[in-house]
């Protein structure tokens, strides 16, 4: 185990130099070269700072990371318990548990079904390195410091291939980290006719988790995705996700920000063919000094594509939430429809919302709109409820809940997991509301 203070890109690159011989695939020249390239570029680029537009409202990383260890990690299977139950227990479901950046349990235990192939990094490198190569090579060229860091020190990854099936398999991935650097990678492809639900829970107690996700949705596929961010206390959780949607593919994601550390999720969605549809719904309920960040970019690249984003939340104490939502309609993407809305209730004068809903339109035949509001609880509604006999606290809770429920109720991603209310209640309790 090596413990170092991570404040600069250099400290991570030094860590890489010390560990590289022990990383998976160290004996594969192409992978070693890509890692080397990534480390060099990371050094050049530096860690993200608030001066970069993409990180404008999220404080310089170096200050938040503090001490990070790159531990050996436990290979014991962990029984993470979420308190959330599956809506339909008869479906094919798979749980994947991560501990400190590694898939817990022996790799062979990952199920292999005719239409579903799940492999770890080491298995994939042994069986099918060509599948890993393109995405890793792309990361080595990335402008994102976090992607470069991820590649340089990547210890494990999950590769999911899903073929056509009547069933809608449910994949449940739970990541725990005890204070180290947890670089994880999830690469998922849905082949034509496939449909799936993916639930990701991130529960780091401390340290830095740096998650990288790439998802390719072929024509006519559907993915429902639930991301429960940052249950942990002082952890820094950074996720970057890239998606490509083919013709008539549907992607919906529901995000919940609820921890007390820093959680940032970046989502890049390319709607590459007609009929592709994306929906982002999200909630944030933050207190203490928690910091949440959703940075999304939806590119309408083909005619007849549509997207909606609805992001709502409540901020108390000194909590801060960032929403940077961008919709681009590229030239030729006729009849695109893009909508985006961000609404916030501020419960404290020390809380802060920074919202940047952005439209970049390069085609005239479009319908795009965005809205953003922030304010406090509606005094009149509060008074009305109290005049009907509800105690103040109850009335507040009721209003907050109804404000938030819009984002959960309309979420396609929660269709199999009607847990919106549960998530809201749990968090309200935690915030003492």
């Amino acid at each position: 185990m090596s413990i170092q203070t991570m404040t600069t890109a250099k400290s991570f690159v030094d860590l890489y130099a010390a560990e590289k011989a022990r990383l998976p695939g160290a004996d594969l020249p192409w992978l070693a070269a890509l890692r080397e390239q990534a480390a060099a570029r990371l050094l050049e680029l530096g860690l993200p700072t608030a001066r970069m537009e993409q990180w404008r409202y999220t404080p310089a990383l170096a200050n938040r990371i503090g001490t990070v260890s790159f531990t050996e990690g436990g290979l014991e299977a962990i029984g993470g318990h979420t308190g959330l139950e599956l809506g339909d227990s008869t479906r094919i479901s798979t749980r994947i548990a991560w501990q400190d950046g590694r898939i817990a349990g022996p790799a062979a235990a990952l199920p292999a079904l005719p239409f579903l192939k799940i492999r770890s990094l080491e298995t994939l490198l042994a069986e099918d390195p060509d599948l890993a190569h393109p995405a890793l090579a792309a990361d080595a060229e990335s402008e994102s410091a976090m992607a470069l860091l991820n590649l340089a020190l990547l210890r494990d990854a999950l590769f999911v291939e899903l073929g056509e099936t009547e069933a809608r398999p449910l994949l449940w991935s739970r990541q725990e980290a005890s204070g180290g650097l947890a670089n994880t990678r999830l690469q998922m492809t849905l082949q034509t006719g496939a449909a799936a639900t993916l639930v990701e829970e991130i529960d780091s107690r401390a340290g830095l988790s740096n998650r990288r996700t790439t998802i390719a949705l072929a024509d006519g596929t559907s993915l429902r995705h639930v991301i429960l961010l940052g249950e942990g206390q002082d952890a820094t959780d950074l996720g970057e996700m890239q998606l490509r949607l083919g013709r008539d593919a549907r992607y919906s994601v529901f995000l919940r920000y609820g921890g007390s550390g820093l959680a940032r999720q970046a989502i890049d969605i390319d709607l590459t063919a007609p009929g592709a549809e994306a929906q982002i719904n999200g909630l944030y309920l933050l207190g203490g000094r928690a910091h949440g960040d959703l940075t999304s970019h939806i590119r309408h690249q083909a005619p007849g594509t549509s997207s909606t984003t609805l992001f709502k939340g409540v901020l108390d104490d000194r909590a801060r939430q960032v929403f940077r939502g961008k919709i681009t309609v590229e030239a030729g993407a006729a009849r695109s429809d893009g909508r985006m809305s961000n609404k916030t209730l501020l419960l404290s004068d020390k809380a802060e919302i920074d919202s940047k809903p952005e439209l970049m339109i390069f085609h005239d035949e479009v319908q795009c709109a965005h809205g953003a509001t922030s304010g406090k609880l509606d005094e009149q509604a509060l008074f009305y409820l109290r005049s009907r006999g509800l105690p103040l606290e109850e009335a507040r809770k009721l209003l907050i809940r109804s404000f938030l429920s819009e984002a959960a109720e309309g979420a396609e991603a929660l269709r199999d997991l009607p847990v919106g209310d549960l998530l809201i209640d749990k968090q309200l309790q935690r915030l003492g509301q």
Partner: protein
Amino acid sequence: MAISVETARQVKELERYKYGFVTDIEADTAPKGLSEEIVRFISAKKGEPQWLLNWRLKAYEQWLSMPEPDWAQLSFPPIDYQDAYYYSAPKQASDGPKTIGDVDPKLLETYEKLGIPLHEQEILAGVQERSNIAVDAVFDSVSVATTFKHKLEEAGVIFCSISEAVQRCPDLVRRYLGSVVPVGDNKHACLNSAVFTDGSFVYIPKGVRCPMELSTYFRINAANTGQFERTLIVADEGSHVSYLEGCTAPMRDENQLHAAVVELVALDEAEIKYSTVQNWYPGDADGVGGIYNFVTKRGACRGCNSKISWTQVETGSAITWKYPSCILQGEGSVGEFHSIAITNNHQQADTGTKMIHLGPNTKSRIISKGISAGRSSQSYRGLVKISPKAHGARNHTQCDSLLVGDSCAAHTVPYIESRNAEAQVEHEATTSRISEDQLFYCRQRGIPEEQAVALVVNGFCRDVLQQLPMEFAVEAQKLVGISLEGSVG
């Protein structure tokens, strides 16, 4: 009057941009290029006091090391600051104070042609259409005439060129110059601070309602010349002023730089209404030539219940980079931004506003209407910031973009930062193309297509057009139609 008609293309362009002529007048011009000597030259020409020269030199020094702002959605080759003239004045106008009678008839003729009357007698006699507007006419680097000075003086209003104000009321100028837009605010404002040559100064004393509309008309005439005017308006307690600004330039193949700074200060209960119709030469249909309009405009609502309202109709310039803003310090102060921006052909505009809410119960309203046509590109960029002390602050933003044709682009880039639970912020934005249904409906009623576009766009802009003083509103409405010519069919 020599009109530069070099090619048939330009002749055709002339029909569209009717202000594209050049006045042939002898000019007093500083050597080309930018240096400390030029800064000293300008200051000496104006007979400025030492403090102002020092202020300019400090700005120049800072400018040298400042980076160009690069965050706007604009693309243009790097500016060669050494390839421009920084001072050009019509010969006779540069020699001290003047009355209308002394102004070169050629200049009077120029302004007449632009529709800006400088003959007070005629205006008073009702010969001219526009009445009750006092005009400060700025030609290239200097103010050539200011009308109705005496009538304004009776009311205690000071309205003169800023060069004159430096001599007449140096204390006022010194107290407020650079107090809203600091020297190092951005590279363009910094350049202006170093080399500004003229502009208008307005002081409205306590409790005075300015008896007439004030107006400055900016005209770039000389070739290869940048215009760097500086406007400072101070509205003392309980006063009220409405100020109009218009601009045109000849058609030239090279790009000319216009880097102005406008500072507004409103004290307790004071109100400033600032309206602009910007019609600088936009370049030709192929994107050759046109003005680079890099302007820093900012108002400080320092007093309680003060109000600053910006209204702009931006139709000209090859590139517009402009964000008229309000700093809402005084309790209950109000900031407004009403904007119409139209880009056609190859024009680019990146414009918007900042509303900085510092004081309690401050209010701001933003209405932005952007129309992109041809191959043009336009961005609304705005910031609404609610500071922790701005209890009860409110903002409402409505930001609509209209696209005419399939080769243009429209972007909306708002930043909303709220740090107060008692504040209420609302932002709405839409982007859509001009409605085929509306155009067809108009045409079915016999209205030709181009006229139909102008009609629908005018309707789209109505909320902003209503904010303009009557004289400007009519002109602006026509301008909307003219600016969109050739955008359909």
